[in-house]
């Protein structure tokens, strides 16, 4: 049943999600053509700006669409169908989490792809020094004595990105579900947004404080990944607070469990 839920959630959410990806792809292709045929600079500029705007939209719009899809499919009239399917509430939740996670990951991938394209073909054309800098980075990677480090760095960055996406998904699901329960449901549609902002800010503040007061961190540079004390490092690489990450993971698990509990015990479909 879980597989069928995921399949149907993908089909349902695709109706609102595919438009933005197709639009971005179309503009991307047009942009590539203008560069390939060396169109006038003004045309290249216009399509590149359009692609740039779409790249921002592709990060933001899917989040709102997933927020809307989650709310509609569970807490509007469609909830009459979702909640009468012979499936456990945790499967309903898991399926929507998988689908949301996948779409947001795809959005990030599109965003990175677009920027790589723009930097390589547009900014580098405007300023050849950028292309030289890119080539320097490639050369640096080539000359690394142990190339496995670069994969470790990529793995850590990807893992952290996945954690952040899961945190975001759990915050959205928990806020919306909580806003559909008395007395918070009296706030209407704004309730979910207010709760989301409140939870996001509270978690962000806790994350900053934990990172500051529990100094164990992951130190990531292009050549190494290691556990360090904050006081000793932090000038030439990126420090990722371990305490903050652990806190986020615990909160994410708690919010998924909480959402499932509310769906199972407290939700009254109107």
């Amino acid at each position, binding site marked *: 049943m879980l597989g*069928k839920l995921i399949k149907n959630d993908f089909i349902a959410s695709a109706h609102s999600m595919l438009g933005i990806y197709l639009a971005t792809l179309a503009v991307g292709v047009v942009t590539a053509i203008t560069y390939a045929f060396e169109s006038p600079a003004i045309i290249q500029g216009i399509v590149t700006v359009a692609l740039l705007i779409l790249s921002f939209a592709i990060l933001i719009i899917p989040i709102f669409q997933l927020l809307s899809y989650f709310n509609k499919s569970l807490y509007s*009239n*469609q909830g009459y169908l979702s909640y*009468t399917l012979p499936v456990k509430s945790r499967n309903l939740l898991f399926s929507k989490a998988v689908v949301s996670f996948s779409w947001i990951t795809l959005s990030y991938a599109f965003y990175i792809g677009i920027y790589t394209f723009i930097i390589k073909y547009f900014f580098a054309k405007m300023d050849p020094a950028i292309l030289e800098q890119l080539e320097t980075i490639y050369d640096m990677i080539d000359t690394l004595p142990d190339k496995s480090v670069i994969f470790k760095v990529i793995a850590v960055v990807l893992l952290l990105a996945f954690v952040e996406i899961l945190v975001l998904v759990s915050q959205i699901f928990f806020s919306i579900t909580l806003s559909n329960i008395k007395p918070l449901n009296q706030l209407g549609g704004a309730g979910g947004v207010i709760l989301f902002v409140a939870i996001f800010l509270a978690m962000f503040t806790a994350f900053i404080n934990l990172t500051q007061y529990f100094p164990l961190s992951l130190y990531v540079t292009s050549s190494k990944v290691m556990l360090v004390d904050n006081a000793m490092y932090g000038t030439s690489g990126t420090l990722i607070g371990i305490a903050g990450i652990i806190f986020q993971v615990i909160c994410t698990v708690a919010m998924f469990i909480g959402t499932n509990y509310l769906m199972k015990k407290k939700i*009254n*479909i109107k």
Partner: protein
Amino acid sequence: MASIVEMDEIYSAPIIDVKNLSKSYGKNQVLNNVSVSLKPGQIIGLLGPNGCGKTSLIKILTGLINDYSGDVKVNGYKPGVESKAVVAYLPEKTYLADWMRPIDAINYFDDFFADFDKEKALAMMQHFNLPMKQKAKTMSKGMQEKLQLLLVMSRKAKLYILDEPLGGVDPAARSFILDTIMQNYSKNSTVLLSTHLIHDVERIFDHVLMIGKGQVLLDEDTDKLKADGRTIEDVFKEVFHFAWEVN
């Protein structure tokens, strides 16, 4: 193989068993210590005026409301995965997503309900003159209701719960809906049909349950009620006139 005694026990086990059920919305108590046990294989009328608690009871039976007190069993199970697998529910509201076309809705039901008969659904879709590929958002309310009715009646469910299927439709449509229900429900199953339009449907009921002010005011077989020549509508008027006076 079950013995005759065991088979008799299985047959007579209540399809709906509710004990001391209470539900309130804030200070508004919609169900107050309701207890009722309904035998399978009947068409049961769940009758009462608007706002009497019929829909709340139905939502509890179908698992749409979970914060209540009391004991509720459907086919021997608390509302959950096992009960939902045997209950075909037609709510008052249209629950299909805007993008869904009849063929999508049929495939969706076919995915999730083991008792769904896809061939029957496709045949009913043609019979109802529903275009296979028209999106729900462009359909009229009547077309959407027809689509939901065919989805529910294409299941071979043990219990059909139909919440006000005749509300807000003209007499011709009422007749069409009733005929569809009567021609398509599985004969060994139970139908719980809620309505406040008794005149149109009383002929089909084997049993009626009248709810008012959150309590069961009458729980009786129609044969007994009609024994002295009264109609269900007459009984309804008597019961609710009395109920409004004491409340």
